[in-house]
């Protein structure tokens, strides 16, 4: 398959970027989007050029590294798919594909398509953990958890922190990410204990870092490769309001 690629090139966070056009030919339809970029880069390197920088690690949809904004959609806009899981056969032969980095004030460009997503780590560091002693492995029936809650917690925990929610949101809001990280702990007995402190600290950090506010357009839910639901944002809002109303312990 042949494609025309319009790729955002930017030397570093401070320099001005712009689009460059490349042609790639004879791409196997079963190649993933990242493999297609590998082929492009091989060609660029062979000619002595500077390869396109993009982030990747697992290449199987579990690490969350590979976010690219493809044709106006994070991860290309196919349901439940990360960029690394996206096959080139999903595109039309001869199509022009526009590739941009995630764009958000808290995600400065490192180089080309690679952005610094450590802002998400900082939100986790602010409170996305359990600090009590949970002891050894408890007896299976010692702490009862309903199937409903266990399922919801697992769903929330499937967030890979790729940042597609921020990239898709017209407000660059990270509330789907933060909502999922709060929910996965809040839904289970060990995590629930610290919910109030946690939600206050994580939301404060999120605001401080410059992420926008949720206005419920639900673009995040549409593009999330792990299909995290916006009900996690409602859960966070509920916990946050409650924590604020109660004030300090």
């Amino acid at each position, binding site marked *: 398959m042949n494609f025309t690629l319009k790729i*955002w090139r930017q030397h570093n966070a401070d320099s001005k*970027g712009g*689009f460059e056009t490349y042609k790639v030919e004879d791409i196997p339809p079963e190649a993933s989007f990242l493999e297609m970029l590998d082929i492009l880069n091989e060609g660029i390197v062979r000619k002595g050029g500077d390869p396109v920088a993009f982030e990747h690690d697992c290449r199987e949809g579990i690490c969350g590294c590979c976010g690219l*904004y493809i*044709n*106006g*959609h994070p991860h290309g*806009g196919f349901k439940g798919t990360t960029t690394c899981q996206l096959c080139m056969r999903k595109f039309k032969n001869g199509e022009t594909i*526009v590739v*941009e980095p995630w*764009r*958000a*004030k*808290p*995600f*400065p*460009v490192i180089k080309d398509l690679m952005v610094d997503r450590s802002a998400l780590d900082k939100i986790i560091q602010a409170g996305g953990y359990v600090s009590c002693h949970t002891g050894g492995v408890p007896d299976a029936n010692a702490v009862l958890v309903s199937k409903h809650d266990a399922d*919801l917690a697992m769903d929330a925990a499937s967030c890979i922190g790729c940042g597609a929610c921020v990239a*898709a949101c*017209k*407000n*660059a*809001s990270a509330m789907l990410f933060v909502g999922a990280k709060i929910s996965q702990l809040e839904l289970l007995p060990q995590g629930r204990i610290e919910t109030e402190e946690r939600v206050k600290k994580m939301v404060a950090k999120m605001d401080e870092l*410059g*992420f*926008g*506010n*949720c*206005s*419920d*357009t*639900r*673009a995040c*839910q*549409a*593009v999330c490769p792990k299909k995290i*639901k*916006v*009900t996690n*944002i*409602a*859960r*966070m*809002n*509920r*916990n*946050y*309001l409650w924590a604020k109303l109660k004030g300090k312990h």
Partner: protein
Amino acid sequence: MAVSGAAMVFFLLFHALMNLVSIFSESGYEAICEFLGANWYAVVGTIGIAALMSIHLVFAFILSWQNYKSRGSDRYAVVAKNEGVTWASRNMLVIGLIVIIGLALHLYNFWYKMQWSELCGNEPASGIQLIKETFGNTFFSCCYIVWLFFIYLHLSHGISSLMQSIGWNNEVWEKRITAIAKVLSALITLMLVSVVFYYWIIY
């Protein structure tokens, strides 16, 4: 946003119900107009709603500005439509500003000639008479219908969004809340539109 929005939704619901009365009983409607004249409770209510509106407007600008800034200096070259994202949800500020323009017209047509005139010590205009005059005019009726359509758009997103903001959404109720929001916003709008149509076409 959510609290001021929710309070205005309740106000609008009562407003729509009161307007409906005019179709069924002219004297009933006149009684309501008299009740909500220049009495202290009606004036306090009016000031309250004006305050809600102002709070809503100020927060709308603060929120929109913060959200605009969060994208950073480079903006996307291509933005595609995502599944399940409504046009209304992306354009709440613009829709709201259109609602304000319509509101100015509406306040001039009714409130200025009724409560304001009474507060100034003049005889207030008759409510039912004003309705007949205003909606008898095709131009005004069309303006009102366009205005009410934008109110519908604002509410169709606003009502479910406010449930989300105050944290009343969950996995079980998600679809039901969206449906309730759509029905409620359609109901409020239809009640208001029906009065316009009644006096424009049927009456």
